[in-house]
């Protein structure tokens, strides 16, 4: 419930302070808490945030998830330090406002790219065709199971995902295929996660009806009944987006010569 409570506190702050104090706050805040990256908000290399978590790893040209951070945190500190605003939250209700308030296991994992994304020339030349044709589908993998997803789909995982709450946003970063009506980008075996964005929102937990399996042994009247009632995490796909070549180049993607095992966009026969 971090996002909701944080958004709420943000809204309260916004009501109290002038609009100019926090520029364009609500969306980046949600983005901040859930490692959701928006390229529009992406800033060029800011070392303050990423250095604390993963100092040695040279990040890719744009580690998007981290880039919005420093600005946001300043935006949050400004109203709290402002004497005109009154703290409207009681002391016992704790609402996380900066990254330091969130436990380490809930924080987004920083990307561990050791080199910028390399895209072949043929892929770069055909990518606009794929990007321009909507809608898109993605074959995202989670625990080695593929899920074919489009925007707005309802996803019921075959397991209960730990440590998530309704309202949390997850980003699927492993895909075997991305496609539109006529084009498919196939991974070898996976598509690089910097080529696309796929976000899902946890909407709750569902359960199956109670199942009763009757266990019998021969020549025995006794029937043992095994009960099972599993719980499943339910999600909704928020967006499936393929990045445009311009966005890729902006992130510092290198265009290289074609190779044998590089992913390619296939056209439908």
């Amino acid at each position, binding site marked *: 419930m971090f996002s909701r409570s944080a958004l709420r506190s943000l809204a309260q702050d916004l009501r109290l302070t002038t609009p100019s104090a926090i520029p364009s706050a609500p969306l980046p805040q949600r983005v901040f808490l859930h490692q959701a990256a928006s390229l529009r908000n992406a800033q060029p290399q800011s070392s303050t945030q990423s250095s604390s978590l993963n100092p040695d790893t040279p990040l890719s040209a744009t580690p998007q998830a981290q880039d919005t951070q420093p600005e946001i945190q300043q935006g949050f500190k400004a109203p709290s330090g402002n004497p005109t605003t009154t703290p409207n939250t009681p002391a016992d209700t704790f609402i996380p406002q900066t990254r330091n308030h969130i436990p380490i296991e809930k924080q987004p994992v920083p990307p561990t790219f050791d080199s910028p994304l390399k895209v072949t020339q043929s892929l770069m030349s055909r990518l606009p065709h794929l990007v321009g044709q909507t809608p898109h589908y993605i074959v995202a993998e989670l625990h080695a199971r593929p*899920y074919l997803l489009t925007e707005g789909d309802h996803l*019921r995982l075959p397991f209960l995902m730990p440590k998530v709450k309704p309202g949390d946003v997850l980003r699927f970063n492993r895909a075997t295929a991305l496609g539109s009506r006529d084009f498919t980008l196939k991974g070898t075996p996976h598509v690089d996660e910097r080529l696309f964005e796929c976000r899902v929102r946890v*909407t*709750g*937990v569902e359960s199956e009806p109670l199942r009763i399996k009757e266990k019998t042994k021969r020549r025995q009247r006794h029937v043992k009944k095994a009960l099972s009632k599993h719980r499943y995490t339910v999600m*909704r796909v928020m967006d499936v987006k393929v990045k445009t070549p311009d966005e890729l180049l902006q992130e510092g993607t290198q265009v290289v010569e074609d190779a044998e095992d590089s992913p390619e966009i296939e056209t439908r026969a």
Partner: protein
Amino acid sequence: MPVQALRTVTAARNGVGAFILQCKRLDFHYCDWAGSSRGMNEFLRQNLPAFAREHPQIEIRVAPRPRKHPIIRGHFVNGKDKTICVRNLEPSDILKQTLLLKDASGEKLKRTKKPVTSTNDSVRGIWSPYHGDLRGV
């Protein structure tokens, strides 16, 4: 001309844009006299204030239900409700049942075999024998 029902123009897809928690109200019923409410009464004193503070979007009602077992009833956005009897349960177990109602969608429990359900049209289109290349046998 037969009477036609109003058609829905859009289908609700909670979570794509905004997200609304489906549990909108929780009713806690207890009994002051009966022993099966002992855990419930302790839960109402110890745990419920913190739970209510963490979930301001859920309306919480506490009402006595004399000479009956304690229950929790959750009301959901889709108009349905779910009731759980919490007789003789410890406060920690009652909290688990409360969280179950909070996370639930209010729908009837169903056994599904496919993980993904979609209302969108097929991205790749429907196969047609009259289009595309002719393949040799």
